[in-house]
């Protein structure tokens, strides 16, 4: 029999019996396995920390999103937003499900092409596109979403040099009732800048205008904002038809659906408050269908959903390194995964859970990462049961942005492991080592 866990005695204010708004605090949630594989086994095999990605969750989430839209709108196409998670294995799952690629740089464009995505199934967004990038995009017949006039001029110039046609759309920024308005990207709708750009493009010889794009922001918590955006793009779509007798092929509403993570400062958990795919889909589909567009000319609806599509599938396994008490008497805990791996910890109150049965007593604690930097705080304040050094913890909903925005800082970046549909595990990105990092370095001989 294992020795009973020793719990250090502490004195704390009694809160039991005084229910807060949501009643008594629920039983401590435990994540002991992922897709049927025990957390301890995963850590034995792949070390700590380690990112784990569930293929099943990705596919289920994709199917749910797809069903939500396709049962409401006749022509829907998702484009996987590379920046959210561009590990090849992850992208491949999305492409296998039928997703196009949405990229925002030459690098991402090359990555999508190397993943075998047909160039004409790539949407090229972003404010920074060099002549080189544009050339690559044109040669692969990608859909280029123009961000500003200078890009438009460069693109016209490039098509002329190549003597080739480019398929283009413009990114539109608009007031969808969301604050702040992301007006730094694309052409503004309300002041007529977008209409201006459209007129120039329609007259440009080598540009084939095929769509309209907007991305109103990220983690948008009101579905109705999309209805406003969709209506405005539908208006432009009809205006183009009226003036140029030209039907565009698609309307792209970008990404931005909230994932189930809880924003810092939110009163209620995100899983309760964020709209579901169904709610976003209902708002968008109704707006386009009830616009002036005749139903036989409805455009294809593109979505570049990122975080809502992949957040749930990612877990970070980590180990308790130390338990401390702060000078104010607050319980603190150091774990072996820091903010360098968890970029989203700056926005979210990430869910951190034990992997084994623990005592029912929880105490408000702070969880620090292993970095020797003051900012390395994973959770400021979390009710957490006591745990001892070596305890294995699971941080959930970390599939989006972390594996792209992470930093190699002080430590190596860990293994990323995929659990496939059969429950087999695969390393999809190896833990870094000294060699791999030094391989880019050059030390001038002195």
């Amino acid at each position, binding site marked *: 029999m294992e020795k009973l866990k020793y719990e250090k005695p502490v004195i704390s204010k009694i809160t039991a019996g005084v229910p807060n708004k949501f009643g008594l605090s629920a039983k401590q949630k435990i994540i002991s396995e992922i897709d049927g594989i025990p957390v301890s086994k995963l850590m034995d095999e792949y070390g700590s920390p380690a990112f784990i990605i569930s293929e099943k969750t990705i596919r289920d989430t994709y199917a749910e999103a797809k069903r939500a839209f396709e049962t409401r709108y*006749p022509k829907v196409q998702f484009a996987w937003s590379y920046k959210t998670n561009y590990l090849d294995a992850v992208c491949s799952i999305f492409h296998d499900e039928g997703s196009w690629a949405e990229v925002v740089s030459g690098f991402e464009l090359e990555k999508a092409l190397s993943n075998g995505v047909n160039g004409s199934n790539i949407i090229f967004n972003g404010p920074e596109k060099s002549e080189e990038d544009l050339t690559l995009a044109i040669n692969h*017949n990608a859909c280029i979403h123009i961000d500003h006039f200078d890009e438009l001029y460069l693109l016209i110039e490039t098509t002329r040099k190549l003597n080739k046609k480019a398929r283009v759309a413009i990114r539109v920024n608009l007031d969808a009732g969301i604050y702040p308005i992301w007006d730094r990207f694309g052409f503004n709708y309300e002041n007529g800048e977008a209409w201006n750009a459209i007129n120039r493009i329609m007259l440009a010889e080598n540009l084939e205008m*095929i769509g309209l794009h907007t991305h109103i922001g990220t983690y948008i918590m009101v579905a109705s904002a999309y209805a406003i955006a969709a209506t405005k793009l539908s208006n432009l779509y009809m205006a183009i038809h009226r003036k140029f007798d030209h039907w565009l092929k698609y309307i792209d509403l970008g990404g931005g659906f909230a994932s189930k993570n809880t924003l810092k400062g939110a009163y209620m958990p995100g899983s309760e408050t964020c709209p579901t795919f169904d709610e976003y889909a209902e708002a968008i*589909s109704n707006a386009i269908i009830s616009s002036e567009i005749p139903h036989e000319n409805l455009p294809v609806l593109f979505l570049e959903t990122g975080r809502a599509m992949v957040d749930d599938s990612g877990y970070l396994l980590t180990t308790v390194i130390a338990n401390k008490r702060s000078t104010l008497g607050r319980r603190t805990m150091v774990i072996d995964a820091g903010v360098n791996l968890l970029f989203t910890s700056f926005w979210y109150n990430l869910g951190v859970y034990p992997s084994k049965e623990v005592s029912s007593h929880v105490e408000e604690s702070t969880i620090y990462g292993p970095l020797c930097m003051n900012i390395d705080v994973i959770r400021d304040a979390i009710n957490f049961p006591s745990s001892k050094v070596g305890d294995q913890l699971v941080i959930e909903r970390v599939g989006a942005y972390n594996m792209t925005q992470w930093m190699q800082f002080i430590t190596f970046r860990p293994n990323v492991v995929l659990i496939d549909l059969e429950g087999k595990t695969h390393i999809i990105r190896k833990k870094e080592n000294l060699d791999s990092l030094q391989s880019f370095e050059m030390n001038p001989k002195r």
Partner: protein
Amino acid sequence: MKNNTLSYKQILSSILNSYSQVFFSSSKLLAAFLILISFFDYGAGMGGLIAVLIANSLAWVLGYNKYLLSSGLYGFNALLVGLGVGILFEPSMQLFLLVAISAIICFFLTIVFQGVLGKYGLPFLSVPFLITIWIVELSGVNLTALNISERGIFVYNELYALGGQHFVDFYDFLENNITSSFLRIYFHSLGAIFFQAHLLAGIVISLGLLIYSRITFVLSFLGFSVAYLFYNIVGIEFDSLGYTFIGFNYILTAIAIGGYFLVPGRVTFGWVIVLLPTVVLITISTQQIFLMFKLSPYSLPFNMVVLMFLYALKLREQRPKHLVETPVQLGKPEKNLYLHSGNTKRFPSAYPISASLPFYGEWTINQGHNGEHTHKGAWRHAWDFVITDRNGKQFKGSGDFHEDYFCFGKAVLASFEGTVVEAINDIPDNIIGDINTKNNWGNSVVIKHAEYIYSKVSHLKYHSVEVKVGDIIKQGQIVGRCGNSGRSPYPHLHFQFQATPYIGSTTIDYPFGHFLLKEENKYSLKTFEIPQKDQIVANPSKNEMLKNALHFIPGQRLKVTVEVESDKDKWQKQAGTFTWLVETDVFNTTYIRCEKDGALAYLHNNGDLHYFTNFIGAKNSALYWFFITLFKVPIGFLPNSKISDSIQLNMMFGGVLKFLQDFISPIYLFLKVDYNLNIKDAGGILSSGDIEMSALITKKIIGRKVKEFNCELKINQQAEFDITINFDQTNIKILCQNEL
């Protein structure tokens, strides 16, 4: 140039076809046989020819439809009259005058009956002839300047006059050697159609029939045998048929019903057997009546029974599976059968509307036709649709609330264009588990799409119906939202086709025009099929590029360049650069005509599918290869999908094999041509980039593959077709572009 000119070819075919049309045929060879035997009797032959010329000239001068004219439809009744009158009297100027007058009467009767019966979609058969010949016969005794013919009594004299001693000997030989009274009367009856009273005429006609169509030949025997049997069973003296012009009624009825107006098959053959005794009875009884006027009923029994039967069939309410009227009359039972055997669903007339599924996205059929819950009896041809997740569940959470159900509130669409004839909107949704048996159907919309084709969607969400009675709506337009009203314990969409406009109407067995069937993450396109329980189905979306390329518009000109690599001269002949024209015929059917070799390829495009229906011309025409490669092409966007069909076997088989096949074709087809189209690249959801497909055409004998044709097809943004066909050591390349 005057618009009303006739080419020499049209004149000739209008004459020849007036002869072969008597057997519902347009075979020139058969016509030659028939003209020959008509002149076995000079008076009849001349009378017939004069009558044909007069009727056809009238049709031409008065400006009737030239297509029908050259098909012989205006001439064949007059021909019969001419023959009949010509044989009644001795040849003389007066006789030919009488023939001319009768032909004029007959022509106008033809026009009248064409109009009257045509309204009911019925043929006029030989009704005009009947009336005319009776008119002439009844006045006959008073026409004293005309001598009643005594021919037929001195057969040998006449034969001698025709062909000398050898001919007489030959005839003698036949007379002495054909002793079976069955055969003799059969030949006599056949000859009697042309008012010829001797064996030889019947023999020549039956030979002509055999060469023209095996099915017709078999039917002529079948009809006659059944009559013969019936005569024997009920004890009517059969030999009497030998000297009355009556027996052909059995033959013609059998041909008309067994093979011509209906697509031949076991069932039509069965009905020939059932109906013939009726024809016998009508024949016997009308003979009694007509005897009082010293008249013969001639083909009256045939006309009565065929018209009655065809009319009765037209009034069927359920879409027929058997006894299908020939959708496109190709003028030959075999051709009609082969065209029909491939895929009956191709015919626009078989399915006047091509309905799509009434929703967006993938739905699951929860209850299909003849379902175990409510789709029973008169309401058995209906579907219940729901949405399920990957695990087959219809709801999330506990399923206690409407909103838990994936289908609840989803748009419900018009499956085809039409007019709203019923719209109910104010029945509340049941709470989950309850049903409303007072308003069984709940909120519903009934749309009229065509005569006798309505669709109904039911159990819609309370106050979600967006259309009202009288609204004219388009296919795919939203009519309401899926709900839980009426006899519906949980949200689902009920859909049915019906023949009448009421909420409670019973269902008809009618298919969806096109849908995708999900099979393990792959899709196959189904056309005019009934989706089954538990299947997951969705609407295909159209490929704009393909839609444009396959939209052949009358007046369009296509420039065709053909290159051939082959050691056979036959194939090399089609090489070159020439033009194809898109045109329409009198029936408004679109076809492509090759300017070089005159080949025709008939096509149809129902908006979802392009298909070729028929090809007329030689196999070494590039158009033939275009026809088989693009035999059936869906316009829906579907990479990695397949569509299958079979090409009518007479397009690819010939010679002895086909001759043998013809005989047993209504019973069993041992020859088959499979068509499999594989869509490799369909340009994506934006319809951009080239479309690539390959068609594999396989000739089979009793299921065994004997030859394969590989056709690669590329269509680009400019709607250019690039086709490569490979078989044996031959390679044919066809490039087809719009001529500007």
